[in-house]
């Protein structure tokens, strides 16, 4: 599959699994899980520095250096376009001008559902300001197309709510989105276990982004490995072209002629 790379904003990645860095027990587990996942693109959050507390505490970027990974700063916790834009401007400065970012503007803290109106506003400002925006959004195909038209480099629709583990709830909407946009479609949010990731890839999604599915598993490093296999399996199945689904399968796999006669009369 060496030629089947994921292309985002003109850059090629061999892994179609993107992984978050939150909710792990400690940095050692974070590092081990990301290693096991094979992910090249990993998300980070931007937060206030703890000032005056433990100046020697390790920094996330010490274990996940920008030289080894493509770091994708997110705007988690932002509820307005303005806050999201400010956060990503800080992130760009933090990462020496790196402009590939994940935009998410949330609508309410209980569901963490995206506020697509604010998302669109933020996307417009960010694209104009030279950012390469991978945008987290609902599975609304009209909004997805609008975000692409604005200039976002990837559309990242939710499969279900962030952290819910509910899996791919609406494959038809994901299909509608893929039918309408040309940029990569990467499922982001709601993946719970390996089959969810495989289903997303079988549908034809270009990649899957997950965090809780790995970090909240009983054995995160093992789950990370499972997700890597699932994304690869799903992608291969998609490329292989599945058989059609039929309500009645009048097509057994074995020959219908030459069956020995039944002994009973």
């Amino acid at each position: 599959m060496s030629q089947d790379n994921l292309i985002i904003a003109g850059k090629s990645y061999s892994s179609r699994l993107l992984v978050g860095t939150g909710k792990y027990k400690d940095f050692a587990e974070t590092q081990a899980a990301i290693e096991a996942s094979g992910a090249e693109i990993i998300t980070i959050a931007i937060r206030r520095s703890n000032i005056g507390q433990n100046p020697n505490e390790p920094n996330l970027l010490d274990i996940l250096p920008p030289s080894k990974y493509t770091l994708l700063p997110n705007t988690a916790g932002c509820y307005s376009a303005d806050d999201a834009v400010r956060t990503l401007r800080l992130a760009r400065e933090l990462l020496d001008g790196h402009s590939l970012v994940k935009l998410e503007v949330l609508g309410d803290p209980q569901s963490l559902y995206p506020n697509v109106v604010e998302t669109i506003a933020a996307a417009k400002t960010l694209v104009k300001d030279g950012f390469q925006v991978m945008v987290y959004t609902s599975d609304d195909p009209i909004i997805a197309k609008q975000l692409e038209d604005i200039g976002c480099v990837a559309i990242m629709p939710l499969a279900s709510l962030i952290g819910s583990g509910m899996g791919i709830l609406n494959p038809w909407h994901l299909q509608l989105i893929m039918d309408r946009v040309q940029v990569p479609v990467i499922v982001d949010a709601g993946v719970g276990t390996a089959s969810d990731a495989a289903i997303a890839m079988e549908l034809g999604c270009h990649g899957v982004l997950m965090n809780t599915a790995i970090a909240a598993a009983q054995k995160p490093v093992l789950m990370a490995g499972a997700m890597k296999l699932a994304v690869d399996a799903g992608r291969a199945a998609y490329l292989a072209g599945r058989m059609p689904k039929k309500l009645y399968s009048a097509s057994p796999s074995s020959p219908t002629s030459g069956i020995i006669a039944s002994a009973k009369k």
Partner: protein
Amino acid sequence: MSAVCLDQLTLCACVRVKYKITIIIGDFLEVITISINGTVHQFDTPINVTTLIEHMQIGNKRIAIERNGEIVPRGQFNQQMLADGDKLEVVVAVGGG
């Protein structure tokens, strides 16, 4: 010029000089109040961003700073003198999804 005018000119000059001295002393006594990450800090001498970072013991971390809504580029840390009433956000990268 009459003697009265000359006297007035001298008086004005004295007042101006006295005024200037007052301002210079005032600068040294002025306390700078700055909000950093939501907490108010006070400094009794002028301070640039580099000095602030050393004072806060965050010099070994990769950080980014926003001052009154504008990004402070790393190359400007020495030049930018903080002013009374400044609001700073000092951020780092942390784990997140």
